[in-house]
């Protein structure tokens, strides 16, 4: 038979080894639950943010993108494959393409240097600018055709909410020139939380 002292010692030892995970688990699960809830809530409530690429092409068809906003337009000319086109042209045509490339790179640089959101860089469409743009696109397409090089630019309008006024104006101006008859046009509706990312398009 055990002595009283031995029994007491054993009891004390058991008492010291008792471990309860309940407080830890309860707090841990609470934190997990709250974080998951916040994540689910934010994914539902926050509008989806989508970035549009600056350079858009499919095969040999290259988009000259014009984003039509309530305050005007943002023109994003393609530059990526123009040097390749230039390489297959004769000297006189090379100079023409060179001028167009320089003008376009200046346009892109202006957009990149714009302080603040790129979507605030919209400007009122200017009739002469539109006519020049359409003429340049036609010139490039014809030079590519002449050199038997697979390259065709077309105009792609991205229409933002309340942005149809600028679009209508450009389409009206395009009717003034025969150049536009030879150019394909496409248009897509865009939401206001779809923003343009110049860097992503260029890095691609």
């Amino acid at each position, binding site marked *: 038979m055990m002595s009283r002292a031995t029994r007491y010692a054993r009891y004390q030892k058991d008492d010291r080894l008792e471990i309860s995970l309940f407080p830890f688990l309860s707090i841990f699960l609470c934190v997990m639950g709250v974080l998951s809830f916040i994540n689910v809530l934010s994914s539902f409530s926050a509008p989806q943010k989508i*970035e549009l690429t600056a350079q858009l092409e*499919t095969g040999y068809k290259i988009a000259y993108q014009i984003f039509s906003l309530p305050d005007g337009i943002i023109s994003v000319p393609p530059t990526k494959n123009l040097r390749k086109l230039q390489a297959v042209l004769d000297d006189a045509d090379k100079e023409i393409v060179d001028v167009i490339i320089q003008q376009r790179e200046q346009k892109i640089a202006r957009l990149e240097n714009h302080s603040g959101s790129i979507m605030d860089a919209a400007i009122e469409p200017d009739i002469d600018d539109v006519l020049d743009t359409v003429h340049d696109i036609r010139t490039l397409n014809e030079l590519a055709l002449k050199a038997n090089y697979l390259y065709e630019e077309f105009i792609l309008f991205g229409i933002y909410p309340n942005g149809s006024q600028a679009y*209508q104006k450009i389409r009206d101006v395009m009717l003034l020139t025969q150049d536009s008859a030879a150019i394909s046009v496409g*248009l897509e509706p865009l939401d206001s939380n779809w923003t343009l990312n110049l860097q992503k398009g260029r890095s691609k």
Partner: protein
Amino acid sequence: MKNLISLDSLTDIVSNSVGILIIFAVINLIHDDSKTYQLEIPLEHDTDLSPVFFISKNDRILALNTDTLFANATLQATSNAAANKRLFSLDYFGLLGKIDDKKGISFFARDTSEWPEFKEIEKRSSTLRDSLDKLDPAKQFAYFFVYDNTEDGSSSGSGFEAFRETREYLKSRFIKSGWQPVNSESPANICSRSISRRCVYQPSYLGGGKSGSNPNNSLNNENKSDNKAQ
């Protein structure tokens, strides 16, 4: 006493919470990165198909029955109600009309409460779906006048979402579609090309069916239809 002031469980909780937050941050970053979006490439092109007109506004779509509309407009014109570019009722789902030498008939959509909601497209038997199902892909294409004005707090044009959904439905049925943005200042109008060069209604989006949202497939189909039209 030593057991009571142990920091083990606190450290566990903090490290677990921080770990979970880091995981969420990484997931969000990966998610953000994949949101770069390339526009699909719908190109307007000539076609022998005839347009069937729709107006998309306030998440609702109205099919325009041109026979009824033109008959009503003719009645109004002969009764002089449509003189001097005055707005007149077309007795068609709350539409008002205006006749203009340069723009043909313009349609002003003010009250859209009677129009079918675009979500009805999911129902097997609904006015909207019936009118879309009547389209014959070999003879017709859908042309949408899409309102671009925004409702309070919305990031989209009032007709954009309805148009996109309907366009996808039509695509699955191999029906082509085209569109133009409109608003109260430049409303939907139907006119003849003999009046103005702007009076052209062309399909731009393909009825590619399973070719899906792959821009390459889309463009290939577009070229095929171009050739066919020519």
